[in-house]
């Protein structure tokens, strides 16, 4: 099962290391487009992904999880901090080197209808990367058929267009494209969120089996903690551009430490469990244009203390995980 193709297990250190990453978007105002403020989408995030591991990244809309994924892909410019793939800093790469690196990091987006070109046939979509990097050995059709078989689609899909498929099948096409270059890291940005439960389960199982076969590392970004808990080895919880808790998925789900993680878990309706008396979070996620001082969660936190509004908590190791909260 452990087919070490991409990942050299003898190598020490994580595959991906994100160090104090910050992505701010300037907000321009006025006649001279002066920068009036910054949207602090990602605000000092550090994380690691090891070979063959799945890191789940959960958070509500606007918490910066997608921006973090896009920054790792090189689709957004980093404001500060560094991203290291296999120990190589991505900010110091030449465009040519960056191009080579793109083969090693691939992405699956939420909505395959907008991430697949409607005017291209399936064969062209899934072999585009192979053609680009001159990796076609025998024939395009042979490559495409192999890829389709791996994602559970039949060969008659080859010359059809994306609109002829259902949502689940389209996502399979997007997965075939993502694995075509044998990447080491695949970033799944809400990859199963738009799918119905029965189809969602199929796609999650497919991702898991491909991961085992190719020893892929996954960054699984989702707002749905239940899905993440079924796929991720480790989970990071994001709030307002920062990671508030990160650690083993089972630990986080069973015994969350950060009050935000607790609230997030309590908010998930679970069939068979009555939670009519649970604690509800008050208010809404503040704007990342002007995050509150101190801990970003303190205005909504049920366990808030005076220190929370004055001092920003630093991540500490508690019970084998990282928590950024003054309670710990």
């Amino acid at each position, binding site marked *: 099962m452990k087919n070490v193709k991409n990942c050299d297990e003898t190598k020490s250190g994580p595959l991906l290391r994100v160090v104090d990453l910050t992505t701010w978007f300037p907000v321009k105002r006025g006649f001279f487009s002066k920068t009036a403020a910054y949207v602090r989408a990602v605000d000092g995030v550090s994380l690691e992904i090891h070979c063959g591991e799945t890191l789940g990244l959960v958070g*509500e*809309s606007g918490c910066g999880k997608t921006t973090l994924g896009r920054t790792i892909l090189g689709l957004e410019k980093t404001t500060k901090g560094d991203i290291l793939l296999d120990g190589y800093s991505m900010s110091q790469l030449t465009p040519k080197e960056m191009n080579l690196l793109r083969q090693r990091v691939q992405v699956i987006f939420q909505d395959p209808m907008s991430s697949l070109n409607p005017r291209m046939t399936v064969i062209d979509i899934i072999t585009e990367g192979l053609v680009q990097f001159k990796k076609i050995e025998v024939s395009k059709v042979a490559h495409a058929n192999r890829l389709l078989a791996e994602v559970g689609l039949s060969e008659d899909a080859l010359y059809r267009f994306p609109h002829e498929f*259902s*949502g*689940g*099948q389209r996502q399979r096409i997007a997965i075939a494209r993502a694995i075509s270059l044998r990447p080491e890291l695949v970033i799944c940005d809400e990859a199963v969120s738009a799918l*119905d*439960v*029965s*189809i*969602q*389960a*199929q796609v*999650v*199982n497919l991702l*898991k089996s491909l991961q085992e076969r190719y020893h892929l590392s996954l960054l699984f970004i989702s*707002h*749905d*903690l*239940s*899905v993440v*808990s*079924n*796929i*991720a*080895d480790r989970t990071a919880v994001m709030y307002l551009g920062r990671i508030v808790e990160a650690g*083993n*998925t*089972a*630990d*986080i*789900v*069973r015994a969350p430490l950060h009050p935000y993680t607790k*609230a*997030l*878990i*309590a*908010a*998930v*309706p*679970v*069939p*068979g469990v009555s*939670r*009519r008396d*649970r604690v*509800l*979070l008050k208010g*809404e*996620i503040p704007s990342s244009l002007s995050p509150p001082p101190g801990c970003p969660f303190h205005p909504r936190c049920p366990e808030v203390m005076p220190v929370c509004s004055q001092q920003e908590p630093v991540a500490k190791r508690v019970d084998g995980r990282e928590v950024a909260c003054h309670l710990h």
Partner: protein
Amino acid sequence: MQTTDLNLQDEQKELLLSVRDLTVSFSVDDGTFTAADSISFDVKTGETVGLVGESGCGKSVTALSIPRLIPSPPGTIESGEIWFEGQDLMTLNSSALRDIRGRDISMIFQEPLSALSPLHRIGQQMIETILLHQDKPRKQAWEIAEGWLKKVGIPDAGDRMFAYPFQLSGGMQQRIMIAMALMLSPRLIIADEPTTALDVTTQAQIFALIRDMKQHQTSMLLITHDMGVVWEMCDRILVMYASRIVETGSREDVFFNPRHPYTIGLLQAIPKLTGLREPLKDIPGQVPSPFDYPKGCHFQARCVFAMDRCRESSPPAYDCGQGHRAACFLMEGRPA
């Protein structure tokens, strides 16, 4: 099909809505398809009924048919009766229907931003509903509306009355929709995926609000794809698959004793919050296209128990006891 009462043990509760053999079809460029096929169900006074199913199964079409909001063309209500408070809505003219909509039957939609007018202030939109149905001076209507904004937990309600919808967050907009839906104390609220566009923590807030605000004698039909939401909110559940109702029963019956293979598969496919990374049990195959639903049971192609007769005829709803019914031949002859 259903001559006997669905829920015998609940007979004391008054029947508010009774849909019988509702069939809705749509004509589009590619042809005609049936979106809802012989749908029958009841909603009692004060009850919350969940209509669950995956996208395209016809749950929204069924719900929109009740206040006769199916756009025609392309949609046509082919047949059926919609009994609401003793009258068949199918027989009413448009002005009688307008009186019922908003006053007796109100709706909460998935996307508040497309349900609210972008050009009118919140207050203006809210009092329009009141003035349309009640003979009240404008000032009094304004006060009622402002009072409801406070009730649904909107801070600075007085100022927010002058805000435009885009100036509020999604959660706030949905709170306004709820205020508008509840303002006139309707008998029935139809909520079509009211929290699907919202974050989980906001969703929990909205459901707590609906539970608190909904009066005892108000009924609700909640349309959703989320089984967790159904569990949390509903007394009774209707499960739809490919244009038909496949199973109905109390919340406990459907969750703990599901009888239709589709319901069983659906419940097993839900990812559980365990952190165990167990493989998910999926339902193989995919939902058939509405243009070529198979003859017989619509679920046959994905069903592990499919028999020859499933391909020939459609199973009727078999009684599994205490109002629990499943449209599957496996239930035939089973003691209820």
